[in-house]
Structure formats: C-alpha cells, structure tokens
C-alpha cells in the first residue's frame, strides 16, 4: 500500500476535524496514513489518531515557536523518510501555507482545496475547483510526491482500530519567519470555512447594525458562523475574514442562508457547493433564488427575527 503523509492540526489535545477529514481522504484512496504533528499537545492528539485511520504518527518536538519554513522542511524530511507517495494537509490557512512549501521542497506541484482524491495507477487523481468553483478540474501529476490540500467539509473522517505507532523527531529551530504572538479569537467563534451552518448578509441589511440579527440567528443554530458579501466587506461593515466569494472564502457548509444578498457571480462561486441553500431577499428576481433550494421573498428585518425564534424553539425541544 502507498504511504501518505498527512499534516495534522490540533487544538485542546485533539486533532482538528479538517485534519481528520484529510486522513479520511487518504484512507478512502487506499493509502496507509502516516501523520505529522507539532506544537504543545501534539503527543496527546497523536495518540488518538489510530481511531481515525492513522497507522503512524510522528511528533516534531522541541520547537518553542511556530515557523512555517522550518516546519515545512521537517515535513518534507518525514515524507522522504517514510517513502510517502503523497503529502496532504487540510486546506486551512495553515495547511495551504505549509503544503506549498513542502511541495517546493519535494519538487512537486500542489493541488489546492481538492474536493476529490483517488488512487490512480502508481499515483493519484484529484478533483479540484478552478475560478472559485466555476469549473471543476480532474488532474493527475508526474510529481515524485503528490501534494494536495483537502477542502474542509468535503471528505468524511475515517475510523480505525485505534492502534497508532508513535514516534518523535526533533523539530528544526532555524526558521526564517517565526510566529511570535497569537491574538486568539473569542472562544466559540467559528470560521466560515469550518462552520456547518453559515448565515451570510449582503447590502440588503442596509448597514453594519443589520448584522446583529444575523449573529442572533447564528447563535440560535449553535455551530454557525456569520458570513458577508463582497459589497458589505468593501463598505467596511464586516471584516474580510467573513467574506464569502471568489475574492473571499469558498465555503461548503451543510446549510447556507443568504440574507439580503442578490447573488453576484463572484459570490455564488464561493457558496454554491453548500449542502442546502436558503435565500431571503426582497427582490423576487434576485439571481440568488436561481441557486437556492428554498427561498422566502420578503423583508429580511421581518423574516430573520421570526426564523431565529423558530430555530430557538426547535433547539429548545432538543
């Protein structure tokens, strides 16, 4: 079987779901999975990876500060040591950054944000979006090691027998760029790329204060994030980190609710692979209704508070 190296991100002593999905992608392609982790809590997170399909886990220890260039060099070395045929990471901010560097070390091209990953002959085949999903490409590569990042929410995590062979390796500490501080987000604030429910607002909300009711709706759902259209980010109503679309983030939640968003091509490109799409808009002719599974024609300021009440009532019933 082919060995695939997966870089695993972790928090609070456990692997992130996006990384478990990445292991799942490799397992589904028939690979034996070797994981690499670093940072405080890596050992604990590594020990739990056997239950998710990993065979081995290598903890890179001793680096006091995170350096993407030092870590990428170490990951390339681990890939070589294990004769990995592929290197995978979640298509998170950190995963994308590392994967590009690892690919350069291994003299390989990189496939970013893949939605499909399968074995083919001696190598692999990926499915990945171009132009933010306006087209879908099937690609193969003659690279010595196939490097790819997997889209969050696009793959299922795998299960395993729980046994994982753990090892340690000293991490490089000669990074040229080093993270010296992290201003952590408020607890419980999910990124739009990670959240299973995204509630997005557009110009129809009339101003930044209109987003308060979207935050309430997101809170009613629980595991939800607030997103925004390019127009409202450009207007300074919301931060760019929340922007969904071709010049923002491409998201694929189970449920996407577009409120007061007309549906410019560049926005649709960023959310059209969502599981279920709901549109709430005053304008019956808005392009968003062509994509939506369910639409309500109406004033967001009347519909959203009512929807929040209904979701809250449902959640209260359990």
């Amino acid at each position, binding site marked *: 079987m082919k060995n695939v190296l997966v870089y695993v991100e972790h928090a609070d002593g456990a692997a992130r779901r996006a990384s478990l999905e990445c292991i799942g992608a490799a397992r589904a392609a028939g690979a034996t999975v070797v994981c690499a982790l670093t940072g405080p809590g890596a050992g604990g997170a590594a020990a739990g990876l056997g239950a998710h399909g990993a065979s081995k886990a290598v903890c890179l220890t001793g680096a006091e500060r995170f350096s993407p260039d030092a870590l990428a060099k170490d990951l390339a070395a681990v890939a070589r040591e294990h004769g990995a045929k592929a290197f995978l990471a979640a298509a998170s901010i950190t995963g994308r950054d590392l994967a590009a560097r690892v690919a350069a070390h291994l003299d390989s091209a990189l496939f970013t944000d893949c939605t499909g990953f399968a074995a083919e002959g001696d190598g692999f085949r990926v499915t990945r979006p171009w132009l933010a999903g306006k087209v879908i490409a099937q690609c193969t590569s003659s690279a010595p090691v196939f490097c790819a990042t997997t889209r969050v929410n696009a793959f299922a995590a795998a299960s395993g027998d729980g046994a994982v062979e753990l090892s340690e390796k000293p991490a490089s500490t000669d990074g040229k760029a080093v993270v010296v501080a*992290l201003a952590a987000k408020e607890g419980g604030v999910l990124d739009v790329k990670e959240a299973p429910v995204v509630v997005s607002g557009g110009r129809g909300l009339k101003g930044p204060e209109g987003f308060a009711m979207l935050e309430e709706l997101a809170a009613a759902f629980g595991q939800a994030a607030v997103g925004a259209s390019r127009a409202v980010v450009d207007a300074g109503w919301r931060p760019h980190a929340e922007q969904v679309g071709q010049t923002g983030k491409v998201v694929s939640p189970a449920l996407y609710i577009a409120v007061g968003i007309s549906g410019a091509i560049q926005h649709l490109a960023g959310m059209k692979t969502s599981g279920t799409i709901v549109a709430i808009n005053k304008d019956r002719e808005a392009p968003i*209704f062509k994509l939506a599974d369910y639409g309500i024609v109406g004033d967001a300021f009347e519909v959203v508070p009512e929807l929040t009440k209904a979701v809250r009532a449902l959640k209260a019933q359990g």
Partner: protein
Amino acid sequence: MKIIACIKRVPTTDAQARIAPDGRSLDTSAFQYMTSFYDEIAVEQAIQTKEAAGGEVTVLTLGPAAATKEVRECIAKGADAGIILADSDWALRDCRATAKVLAAKISELGADIVFAGKMATDLDNSAVGQMVATLLDWACVADVTAITIADGKGTAKRETEDGVETVEFALPAVITCNKGLNEPRYAGLKGIMAAKKKPLDETAFEAVANQVEVSSLDLPPPRAAGRIVGAGAAAVPALIDALRNEAQVL
C-alpha cells in the same frame, strides 16, 4: 530597497466559464482580463514600501505579450519597471513551473523583498509565493494584512482560523498579500503618461515543463431546482418544515 511585485493576468471575476471542445481546457474567447485582485494589493504594498524606504519597484509577471496592459497599469501607479516572462501558455502553467521560473528571475535580478498576491483568482493555488521563497531559501509570510519593515527585518500580521498571528521575519523575504493590507490606488494621468517612458521588457526564459496534467474539465453539476416557500415572516414555518423534513439539516 530593491522591491519586486509579482502579478498575474487572470480572467475578470465576472467571467462566465465555458469548456472548450477538447473537454480539458477553458474556452477563453469571451474572457476579459485583469491583474489578479490580490496582486493589486501586492503592487500597492510595493509602492508604499518604496515611498517609505526609498528604492525601486519592478513588476514581474509570467504571462502573454498582452499582459503589457496589466504591467503598464501597475507602472502607472508608481512602479519603476516591468518585466514580462513571455509564456503564451501562462494560464495553465502549474504552480511549481511558475515558481521555478519566477525564482530564477528574482535570483538574477536580486531583491530585498518580493510582494505577491496571496492567490491568483484563476487556478486558485495560493502556492507560488511560498514556493518561490522556498526555492530561494528566503523567509516568507503568507496572507499578510499588516506589515512593518525596519533594519533588515520585518513584522507582519496574518489572520488564521485561530486568530491574528504576529510573525517576525528576516529579509530577503516573499510576502503574500491579503485584503485589508492596504487600499490599492488608481493610476493618475501623470502616472499613465510617465509609465509610457519607463522600461517594460519582454524576455524569454528557460521553460519548465508542467507536472500537472488536466484530464478533464467540467462545469459544476447544476443544483436541482429550488422553490420559493412563501413571502414574508409568514413563510418561516414552511421553511422550517422544509429544512427539517426534506433537507434534514435541522
């Protein structure tokens, strides 16, 4: 300071995608082109860096001869020179091949700092900046939203899923730029006139073959037709019912 801004000519963001008859490439006949959105931010940061620290900004692209339009626009905003690494197949050059060619040219030109967009909005790789830095053995900070440079080193901020990281880096470095770093300026008439006299060279280079092979290209499957469940707040129960019982997401 010697500053290089890397840009890519890409289809405009309102472009509709059509597949060419070969089933594995894009029909580009109706495309209009622009400098990739994030590369505009890179060019602005390069010019601001020059304005603060002195030096020269060279705009570098791997692209077709027609990219003269985009490069000339960047020069008009305040860059000093442009170089087009002439490649008629630029649009499908894979990130490894692109990075190798750019790294070789940057190495030949020499630079203290290179700015690039965090991602070109066509192949969406977000890889070339980091690859160039890795090939050159330089520092690289990706997705940067704030930066200061002094005394041969710099500090940058970038937003991750966890929060805002502060990163210290050594020069020379490659910085990939994210929205929020600055507001790109427009070229003024004076700049446009001046740009006509500034050097813009189209040069050949040693080609690097693609590793990536595209076996097929498809439009995304159309979504099943949806429906309007009703109008106004009165439609909420119908929506809840659909989400619970049909879509089963509640």
